[in-house]
């Protein structure tokens, strides 16, 4: 069953309450709600996501149409990921926080090797060990990069079983921020092994890189 709601002229929280009453009825397959403020749109989006329902919005003249659908569950999954990216989810166009990271030296590691030899396993091990030596040298020289950021296969360095894990912990204890891309950790099956405070996102990575005085990528 499809339902249409005209919620224009109502103030918060009335639109959310009336929509919730409708979608709580399992017989309702989809709802199209008309609202007249951006706040009501965003609150209906939150409501739909909390119920794991698909939601989409469109502008119609000077108001908005929010469509909530029970069927498209897999798309709702995408929205779930979306919800974790506040900048995107709220549609705030602000861009990066202004010169947020305060410059400094950023070590950006986007693969698990220092340079690369041939594709043979032996060469790969050698290149990987070189990266370990690179990090050890930074640590022993007392150099303190502002942050070490890991992305793509570079996130393997922070696997607690990796040879590089200890030196990264030492650098972290020495005051360097050590962060790994969450999407990449997920891809390499490492997300559960890394504490949450070391998991970051592309937005923060870009902020670090753009504000850096220098970026070193071994």
């Amino acid at each position: 069953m499809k339902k249409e709601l005209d919620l224009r002229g109502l103030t918060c929280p009335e639109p959310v309450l009336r929509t919730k009453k409708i979608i709580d009825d399992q017989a309702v397959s989809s709802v199209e709600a008309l609202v007249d403020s951006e706040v009501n749109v965003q609150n209906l989006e939150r409501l739909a996501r909390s119920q794991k329902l698909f939601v989409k919005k469109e502008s119609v003249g000077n108001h908005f149409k929010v469509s909530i659908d029970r069927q498209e569950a897999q798309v709702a999954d995408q929205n779930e990921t979306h919800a974790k990216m506040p900048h995107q989810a709220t549609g705030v166009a602000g861009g990066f926080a202004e010169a947020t990271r305060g410059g400094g030296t950023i070590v950006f590691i986007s693969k698990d090797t220092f340079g690369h030899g041939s594709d043979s396993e032996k060469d790969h091990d050698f290149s990987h060990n070189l990266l370990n030596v690179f990090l050890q040298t930074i640590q022993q020289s007392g150099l303190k990069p502002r942050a070490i950021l890991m992305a793509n296969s570079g996130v393997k360095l922070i696997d607690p079983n990796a040879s590089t894990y200890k030196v990264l912990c030492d650098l972290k204890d020495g005051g360097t921020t050590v962060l790994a891309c969450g999407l990449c950790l997920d891809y390499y099956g490492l997300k559960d092994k890394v504490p949450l405070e070391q998991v970051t996102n592309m937005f923060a990575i870009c902020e670090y890189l753009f504000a850096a005085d220098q970026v070193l990528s071994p």
Partner: protein
Amino acid sequence: MTTKPEKDKPEETPRLTSNVKAAGCAAKISAHELKQILAGLPKIYDANLLTSITNFEDAAVYKLHDDQAVIQTVDFFPPVVDDPYLFGQVAATNALSDIYAMGGTPLLALAIFCFPTCDYPLSMAAEILRGGADQIVKAGAMVAGGHSIQGSEVLYGLAVTGLVHPGKMLTNGGAKSGDAIVLTKALGTGVSLLALKADLLDHEEQARLFSSLTTLNNRPLSVLNGIDIHACTDVTGFGLIGHIHEMTKASKLAASISINKLRFLPSCLELAKEGLVPAGSYANRKSFESNVSYINDLPLEVTDLIYDPQTSGGLLLAVRADQVDEVLKRLGDDKIEASHIGQFLEGIPGHIDVTIH
């Protein structure tokens, strides 16, 4: 389905909050709009005026003598709750807070009151004023007069005058790098008041909310006598992030906030997740998010709460890191729900890192 059923039954007294669009400090004009409005005002130069309007201070402070300054502040808003006496109490608690945030003691208050006498019984007006006056007395001050007008919407608040030693005045500025940030109340009054309006709070949640809204901010500074407090403000309409931003800007520092250290009123994360987010939260996000870096991925409802406009919120204190344990102990002993939520750091003035830990 009619949109405004209460209009069909004129014989019944409408709920006090029924016509209110934005409740409490959520009714504030947004920070970026306010900036535009204030831009054209004449510049003020007076050596005895100790606060600057550009620092968005909580109150104006004017030095009378070397050992005495007068603090003036005014705050009013539409009803946040249906119980008129409670609304009076909340408005007075909120108005007094600015005096405490400047490190001062309240002395006198004048009521500001707008009331549509055709829509509501006069007894309701009397209850609002009584709630406010009782709370002012509880704070050791008095309501010495006021001004009332007719209008289409109920509005109530107070102009409060207080005193402070100029050397002991606390402002947004003055925090030092490394200082701990301590917050003395749980967050979430914006979401909770919206949920209250929607009848979604159970009895216990309501009690927690009302207790938070009517808890005077006089205790934290009095139990912290002897502690070095470098800066102080109260969290109100601009939300946690907005007020920390004002502190960092005035103190020329950056700050970092740990989400795990924040306390929230019961159920407000769940309520925000379901879309009970006040318009003021979106306005605050728009005004302040360009100063914020989310270092870790955070659920949307958590970031909604750090922008949640607070009515009668807690104090934000900048204290020396080596004194923070003592501060938390003293506040805890006084049953104040304080937590150490982050620190001030060297960095771009006004910038805030938000992390999980």
